[in-house]
Every structure is written in C-alpha cells, then in structure tokens.
C-alpha cells in the first residue's frame, strides 16, 4: 500500500513540482499516472522509491515512512520495490542472465538460489533462450523485458515503471503491457507513469492525472484524456 499525505516538493532551483498531493494506492492495484510533461509525474514516481525527498508531507510505502527514513535504510525500502525505466538501464557488458542476477547479488542473496530464480523470471518474460546474449544483441522490447525480469527477481510487492513503453513501437508496447498485467494478476502493485494514450484507453485501469503539481483527476477505469 502506498499513501501520500499533503506532499509538496520544491526543488532547490525554486521549481514547485508537487503542491499538496494526497493519494492512497491499495495493495494489488494497477495505476496509470498521466499528465502533461513537466506536470510532476516523474517527481511523484521518484518520491516513492526515495530518489527524491518531499519538501513537506508524509509518504508511507509498505510499512515504511519513506519521507522520514534515514539514509542507510533506503536500500531496505528499495528492495521491496522494483523499478523499470524508459531507457531500460541495463549494463551493456553483462549478459541477460548476469543483468538479472546482478540485482540478486547486490542484495547478497544466497548464490545457490540465484540461478534457479533468474531462470524462473526469464521464463516469465519469455527470454530463457536468450539468457547468454548481451543487451545490444536484443530488440528494444526484449531489453525492456530483461529490465522487467530484473525488477521482479527479488519478489517486490510493488513495481514502479516510468514510461516503460516510451521507446517501443506499438506492437512491442502491447507485449510489455501484457507482462505488466500478468504480474499484476499475481498480486503485485503496479504504478506506471505513461504517455501512451492507446494503452490507457484500451487496458482500462485506475488513472491518476497530475497537472501543475496537483491531482486533477483520479478515476477507476479512467481515460487518458489528453490530445497528445
């Protein structure tokens, strides 16, 4: 569960990104975050995995008060969240398998469990057969699937995605969306910032629209609502 109470964010340069946001996202929900560029979507997302700290207000995420935690507790919070980005953020020198295993090594998982678990999630994103390839030998959609596998490998309760289909063609985007849907069906909360009108309007979910740093709209089975 994610909750925000009267959250404000002003950057050091004076930009006010969020102005009094209140939100409650239940466990197992699938939420789109939409809105014009520069309206505060990215800030909203970054506050959840504590890349940014709110200037004012409280944020609760899976039992942590993210707005209050100490620097050294951040890793603990991050281990309960999987993040996916528009640019995939894969390590180019590591193979597909190694990229996914990396996320387990880094949190000091038992090495015996790494291989079976990595193969498991690679099976989920249907890339088992490309485990030994390097990221630049894969298509964009495949790379995003590797990134998704990496986000999932440590069994997080929440997946946060910042424009995961932003760099993909429509057909590949749908493949990725189906994976997100499948992950959500298994009980994982999904929060996704997106500009993809077609997807939001077709795969109907809760829509939170952020405009000028405030929540303009919050509807179940909502529409995209912007003419891009």
């Amino acid at each position, binding site marked *: 569960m994610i909750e925000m109470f009267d959250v404000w964010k002003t950057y050091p340069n004076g930009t006010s990104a969020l102005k009094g946001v209140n939100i409650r996202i239940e466990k197992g929900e699938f939420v789109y975050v939409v809105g014009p560029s520069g309206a505060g979507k990215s800030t909203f997302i970054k506050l959840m*995995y504590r*890349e940014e700290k709110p200037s004012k207000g409280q944020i609760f995420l899976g039992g942590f008060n993210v707005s209050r935690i100490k620097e*050294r507790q951040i*890793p*603990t*919070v*991050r*281990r309960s969240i999987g*993040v996916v980005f528009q640019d995939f*953020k894969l*390590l180019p*020198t590591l193979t597909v398998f190694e990229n996914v295993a*990396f*996320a387990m*090594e*880094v*949190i*000091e998982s038992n*090495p015996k469990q790494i291989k079976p678990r990595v193969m498991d999630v690679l099976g989920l994103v249907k890339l088992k057969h490309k485990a030994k390839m390097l990221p630049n030998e894969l298509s964009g959609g495949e790379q995003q699937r590797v990134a998704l596998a*990496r986000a999932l490998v*440590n069994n997080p309760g929440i997946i946060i995605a910042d424009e995961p289909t932003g760099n993909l063609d429509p057909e590949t985007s749908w493949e990725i969306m189906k994976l997100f849907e499948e992950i959500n069906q298994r009980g994982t909360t999904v929060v996704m910032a997106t500009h993809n009108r077609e997807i939001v309007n077709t795969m109907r979910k809760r829509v939170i629209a952020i405009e000028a740093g405030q929540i303009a709209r919050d509807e179940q089975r909502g529409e995209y609502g912007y003419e891009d």
Partner: protein
Amino acid sequence: MKIRTLGRHVREGVKNLGRNGWMSFASISAVTFTLFILGVFLVLAMNVNFFAQSVEKQVEIRVFMADLTTKENLQQFEQDVRALDKVESVQFISKDEGLKQFRESMGDKAYLFDGLEKGNPLPDAFVVKAKMPQDTAVLAAQIKQMKNVRSLNYGEGTVEKLFAATDTVRNVGIGFIIGLGFTAMFLIANTIKLTIVARRREIEIMKLVGATNWFIRWPFFVEGLLMGITGALIPIVILGVGYYYLLDAIKSSFEATQLFTLLPLFPLVYQVALALLAIGAFIGIWGSLVSVRRFLRV
C-alpha cells in the same frame, strides 16, 4: 559482511582494474612517479637526519671544578649531576688525565709542558652529555648553579646555530614529504574519479535495486588499495637497488676517510618500503572513496 561477499568485492575490484586497463595504468603510473620522488626525499631526509644526529651527539658540556675541591665533594657532584633527568652520561677527567690529554693534543710540542706534573694548573673536570642534544644549553645553566663549579664550556653560540640548521633541514624535509603526499593523493583521486564516471550507470543500478553504500564502495576500495600498493612496489625496488649501489660506490671512494657515512641498507630499505606501502595504500583507498562518494547520492 559475509565472507563470500568479500570474495565478490575482491574479484570485482581486480576485474575492474583490468576492465579499465588504461585508466588503471595511468593511476598506477601516477602513484609510482610520486612515490618514487617521495621515496628519494625520504631516503635523503633520513640520511640528513642521521648526519645531523651524529653531529649533535658530539655536543658535550665540559665542567671545570673549583681548585681544592675535595674528593668527597667531587663524588657528591657527580652523583648530583647523574640525578638530573636530562643527563645521559657523566665522565670524570682528573687533572692528571686532563694534562695527559692536553699534551697529546699538542703533538710534538708536548715537551713545552714538561715539568708541569708537579704544579698541574689544570682543574678537575667532568664531561656531561644530555639525553636530548637540544637540552644542552638548559642543562649547562642548571649545572652552572651547582656548588664547586668554577666554569663550564659547551661551545655556546656555535651549538645553537648547529641546532637551528639541523632543525631547518628536518622541517624542510617534512614539508616536502607532506606536499608530495598530497599531490599524489590528488592525482589518484582524479584518475579514479574518471574510472568511476565510466561506471556511473552500474552504481546507479546498484542503488536502485537496493545495494547498500558499503556494498558499492568495497570493490572501489579494493581497486584503490591494489593501485596504491602496485604503485608503491616499483619505486621500492628501484630505491632499494639504487641505494645498494650508491652505498657501494661511496664505500670504495671514501673508505679511508670515514668522512661520509650513510645509513646502512638495512633497516633503511624496510623502513622506506613500509612507509611507501602505507602511503600508497592510504592514498589509493582515500582517492577511491572520495571519488565514489559523489555518485552514491542517487
């Protein structure tokens, strides 16, 4: 931290050295170069210090006793001087012995003093050495106050100048060593910073999937340590071999005179090696940790 994780950090550190081969080479060269200069200065400074010490050790106080001081009083005086805490040694030179020494110092003109044995005009004397040569003047002042002392002599004026000179040499040496040390640190920090910039993405991903800061730092720590130590080994070998041949050359050309004594090869080489290794390791670790700090704030 688990042992297995430590193994991973060491592997990663070594792998990164190879992966950024040229940058590592540049860093190690920077360490090698600066530590070599530092080592030369260290050897120089230690020898200057050794020379200064041997000169300083020759400083002594000659205390001349008043005429007709009784044997008991002489003994009492010697005890009292020994009891002073700045005193290293006290040596008694009786008037007869003083005359003998004096005649010897005159060489072939010694006959001029024939017959003086009966009415020896020389006083009984003591030679006093201070534990710390720099304390000589203070000690001399203390002794001057004591009973039965007629006069004393420790080369007043000359001694102070000598100490001022040796102190200057020491301080300049230390200043140079500190300055060079900082230059080396700066160079390493800079080179490691470049290797880290290249691995920025890796650090970012590690942070995002929940690695602790120390988990991220360790491989860099290992890498810096290895660079510092490798960089120190080369100058240690060069300095050791170079000094050996220098000693050899000096020995054959100055053997007779004994004018020019340098510190022996051992333990000097050990000391310099230890110092360079410690400095190399320290600046390597420091450089890598300082550079990585900036990238941990994701």
